[in-house]
């Protein structure tokens, strides 16, 4: 047939078609799309503002009755300003910034990404159950492309979500660092893309042979909260017990969160060893590459009928 010459011989053909299919399921469903946007608003608005750690260090925490004889107005002013100074130092030491909300909001970028990545396992199982996977496997599309399309759609969704999280954070009063420029946001998108590739690949690899929808859900329940809490997303690593620090220091989410904070809210000299921006990118990049390769290679063997 004359049309035959127009068939693509590219090894990666079908990648965008499958990626776009997964994305359409999300952006064409108004309810799901709206929930994606609502999620960071609710999480940050409620959780972020409720953990008002900075308020612990305020003069109001010290009742005036504690002093006998009562302090003079001048003494009160002095105490108040020294507590505020103390608060700034403690907060800066622990969190790298003076307000916990900014610290936590950037951790939310990692958390949102982790949640999105963990859902990619669910979509593999759905495709298997509904027979869609079999149909795709009977076409010339390679298994590599099938896996990469899942990873890619999840990574693109994560970038969008990271954007929403940042916008919401700004509305709620995020304090930028002195190094912040418009390019910093591109840096955030890049690191989010990488970590989501790595995490999605792992969640997909675990669920390659799963036939029940409960399996990816159990995997999510098992891993997501521990992974996020054994990282610097909501609490600084150097204040954890030392054995937990060891775990947190290999967790790629720690490096992701650190990179996001360095790009967005840290000023010069902030942020702690062993992290640095180039090392964060190298670590997360290597994690993404290794995980994706694992996912793809396992799919050659296990992504069958």
């Amino acid at each position, binding site marked *: 047939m004359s*049309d035959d010459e127009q*068939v693509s011989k590219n090894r990666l*053909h079908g990648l965008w*078609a*499958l990626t776009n299919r997964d994305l359409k399921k999300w952006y064409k469903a108004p309810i799901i799309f709206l929930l994606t946007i609502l999620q960071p608003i609710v999480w940050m608005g409620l959780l972020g503002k409720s953990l008002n750690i900075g308020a612990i260090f305020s003069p109001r925490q010290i009742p005036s009755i504690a002093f006998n004889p009562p302090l003079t107005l001048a003494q009160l002013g002095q105490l108040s300003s020294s507590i505020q100074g103390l608060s700034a130092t403690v907060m800066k030491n622990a969190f790298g910034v003076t307000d916990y909300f900014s610290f936590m909001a950037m951790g939310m970028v990692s958390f949102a990404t982790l949640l999105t990545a963990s859902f990619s396992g669910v979509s593999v199982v759905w495709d298997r159950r509904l*027979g869609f996977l079999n149909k795709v496997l*009977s*076409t*010339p599309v390679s298994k590599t492309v099938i896996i990469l399309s899942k990873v890619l759609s999840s990574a693109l969704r994560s970038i969008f979500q990271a954007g929403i999280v940042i916008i919401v954070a700004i509305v709620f009063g995020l304090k930028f660092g002195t190094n912040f420029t418009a390019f910093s946001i591109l840096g955030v998108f890049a690191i989010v893309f990488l970590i989501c590739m790595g995490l999605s690949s792992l969640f997909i690899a675990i669920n390659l042979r799963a036939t029940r929808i409960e399996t990816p859900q159990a995997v999510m329940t098992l891993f997501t909260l521990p992974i996020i809490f054994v990282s610097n997303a909501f609490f600084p690593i150097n204040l954890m017990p030392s054995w937990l620090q060891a775990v947190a220091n290999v967790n790629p989410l720690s490096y992701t969160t650190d990179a996001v904070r360095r790009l967005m809210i840290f000023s010069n000299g902030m942020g702690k060893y062993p992290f640095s921006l180039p090392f964060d990118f190298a670590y997360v990049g290597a994690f993404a590459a290794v995980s994706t390769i694992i996912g793809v290679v396992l799919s050659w063997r296990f992504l069958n009928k």
Partner: protein
Amino acid sequence: MSEDVINVEGLTKVFNGRLMAVDHVNFTVKRGEIFGFLGPNGAGKTTTINMLITLLRPTEGKASILGSDIAKENVDVRNSIGFVPQEYTADEDLTGYENLLLCADLYGIQRAVSKKRAIDLLNLVELAEFKDKLVQSYSGGMRRRLELVCGLINRPKVLFLDEPTLGLDVQTRVATWNFVRMLKKEFGMTLFMTTHYLEEADALCDRIAIIDHGKIRVIGTPEELKGGLGGDTITLAIQKDTDITEFVKKINHVVDVKKENDAYLIKAENGEVTAPLIIEALRREGYVVTKISLTKPTLNEVYLQYTGKSLQDVEERNEANMAEGLTFRRAKQ
């Protein structure tokens, strides 16, 4: 190129080292024919299809499609075949048109070509006016039609249909048959299908392989298979008590006679012609025929003879499975 489009030699699939799903089957499918696998659930029909379309690796044996080995040249095989699965696999969250374009993309067909093809195919199965509706709003028949044309988007030379009319109403079933016949006639397509509906195999297939417990019991045209049963059955009763068995046996074209209670079961070639001859011969001898009936052999009898069981009860179980499948689909929404 040879006339054999599909060539299968000793194809075998063993699951988990124990379960022999397909047991050394051999057959060929000729260019432009509709070849049917007839058998109950679990006979190995779908497993055979899955091996031929390269979804499953054979444990043993060889098969080639248009000269390409299914194990070694699987990309060539996939490019030249189309597959219409048993289930509804179209994406419910996309429109019919989007589903077709997606299928086309999986074959690497350029957009300019696939857009036109998708519209043509939707017209062919009268889905054009629903093309921008989400598939979840389609009826069962519409979804079946969409599945059919999804399998045609790459203009395959060989089309595989797995239970193409499972769970469809009579009207849609006949429409599907006509569509399959049209594919054969207009496009010279070769079709391989599985079915457990006897009348479907009889009406549609040029040749049938009866498969049971992973083995092919017999292959032939529906006429050959039915002819192999020894012809039509004439059931007859007369007024007198005399045994006429030996007398009837001598009449031309009569193959065999058996007396059962008051009736004689007469196997005869070409029953429509032989029956009047028998009546005439009996009348001349003074016997009065009180009852007579003629039964043509059905595929069910063929099936019974080769597998030792009827397909009737198997069908009922299948409908139940289908209903379950639909419940699951609804629960998802």
